[in-house]
């Protein structure tokens, strides 16, 4: 029964992620209609961290780290979809449901900018979370 619950949860987060993907694609299309071409991958990630995040969440990503080999970690110390929840451990296990859509948002946005990626997220302490972007070289 626990596995069934997990399966259901997994299907839900998958659906949420793919909804986010669609929206991310649509949003980026509208944002970047009039902007100049991006210089490189890092430029695109900075755009995601600043302009994109500000439009969607009214704030920028607090910290961007990369290994310069296709892995980026975007840290948001006060993620807006988690701020209304208790900051302790109580709802930590439910946090992934609130992150799935945003993972898709990032993946969809990048996709329309020509970047294929895998995006995951983790919360260690509410409301801070990290989004990990792994660029897929085709």
């Amino acid at each position: 029964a626990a596995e069934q619950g997990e399966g259901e949860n997994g299907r839900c987060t998958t659906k949420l992620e793919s909804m986010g993907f669609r929206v991310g694609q649509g949003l980026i299309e509208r944002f970047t209609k009039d902007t100049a071409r991006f210089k490189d991958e890092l430029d695109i990630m900075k755009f995601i961290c600043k302009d994109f995040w500000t439009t969607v969440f009214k704030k920028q990503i607090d910290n961007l780290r990369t290994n310069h080999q296709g892995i980026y970690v975007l840290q948001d110390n006060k993620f807006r979809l988690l701020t209304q929840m208790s900051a302790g451990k109580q709802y930590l296990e439910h946090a992934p449901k609130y992150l799935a859509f945003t993972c898709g948002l990032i993946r969809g946005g990048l996709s329309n900018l020509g970047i294929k990626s895998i995006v995951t997220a983790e919360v260690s302490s509410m409301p801070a979370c990290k989004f990990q972007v792994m660029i897929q070289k085709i």
Partner: protein
Amino acid sequence: MSRPPGRKQENNKISRELFVLTYGALVAQLCKDYEKDEDVNTCLERMGYGIGVRLIDDFLARSAVKKCHSYSQTADMIAQVAFKMYLGVTPSVSCSSAAGNEFSLILDKNPLVDFVEELPAERASLCYCNLLCGVIRGALEMVHLAAEVTFLQDRLKGDAVTEIGITFLRKPEERKHKR
């Protein structure tokens, strides 16, 4: 989507595009999950209900409105204050029954359908914005007003206008506490 004036405007307005695209993605996902239009409509209404029962608190806190003393006042409140506050539009209201408990909201503009040109042929009975009906129903229930809320007409379905019908289900005289 907006706050009353006098407060910091920026942080609580969601990007219109994000909102509209997200709603569209929600409807699209439900269409994948359910074959029948009626099921999608029911699901949207139920989700809306869940939102409405909570949204009413936000509405009452932010609008600081006084208690409504009639169905007509309530309908006006929904159209002129609530719709304005959350969707930035003001449907026109009219009473459509002699009994005074049926109202019609005509939506001239509706941000939810910004990017929708028409319903796909196989989804002809889809009430795209049915979430709104649930929101209204849920919110009203929390202020002890039972109501049926449905789309009477829908431009997406080829009707001339988009019209939401609100039918209040209990006469004022039957309510226990009269203030």
